């Protein structure tokens, strides 16, 4: 299951095991609620638990990036495995997001 935590001005999104279009809407919607309610500046996507992702995951990250980057916020992706890293690079999102 995905989890959301606000620490200072950062929203930490712990992503679920599987990220597809079926789940993506919910994750994006929840993240947006936290961003709006907690004056969040930066967003961290944690892929530690994630074993599967398709292009819906790119949409989630790009959508949050659009929202917070105009206010000077940064987006981070952590615990990115090889497969997911490949997708982030192919889509070009890796040039917008700090990948660890």
């Amino acid at each position, binding site marked *: 299951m995905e989890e959301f935590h606000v620490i200072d001005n950062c929203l930490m999104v712990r992503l679920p095991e*599987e990220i*597809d*279009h*079926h*789940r*993506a*809407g*919910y*994750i*994006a*919607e*929840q993240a947006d609620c936290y961003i709006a309610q907690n004056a969040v500046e930066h967003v961290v996507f944690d892929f530690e638990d994630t074993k*599967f*992702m*398709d*292009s*819906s995951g*790119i*949409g*989630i990250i*790009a*959508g949050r990036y659009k929202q917070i980057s105009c206010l000077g916020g940064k987006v981070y992706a952590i615990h990115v495995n*090889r*497969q997911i890293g*490949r*997708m982030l690079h*192919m*889509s*070009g999102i890796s040039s917008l997001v700090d990948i660890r």
Partner: protein
Amino acid sequence: MKNEIELYFDGISNNESLARVTVAAFVAHLNPTLEELADIKTAVSEAVTNSIIHGYENYHGYGKYTGSIPAYLPVHTGKVRLYCLLEKDVLHIEVSDKGRGIENIDKAMEPLYTTRPELERSGMGFAFMEAFMDDLEVESTPGQGTTVRMKKKMTAGSWFDGEE
């Protein structure tokens, strides 16, 4: 050695995981590498999701707009067909729908091109299918539907060589 399966399911987002898990199970006895499995599952997920959101325009995944339209309530009814054939060491996958079809296939296949930016689609679906499989073919007629054919050579060992 030859083995084939065919599966029809409703074009709703609940079935995206069913489709990719089915294909993963279909090739499980070949002991595919984790990377091969991830490649196949992503490609299947892309094709099936396209049939659901673009073909049948059922774009409400779980959670989105929960107040009004739950994910299992299709806006348009229609089945997605998933066909898999394992012939020697090559996996063939076909995903088809009888949805709205694609006007301009070349354009649709360009990376980052999407007709649904408002749904946060990234336009990377075909690019991932192309990158993660060995071969990709798209056939589509506007108003009639779309078929995506993909192939991947499996690296797994001696299992194929037995008969012939």
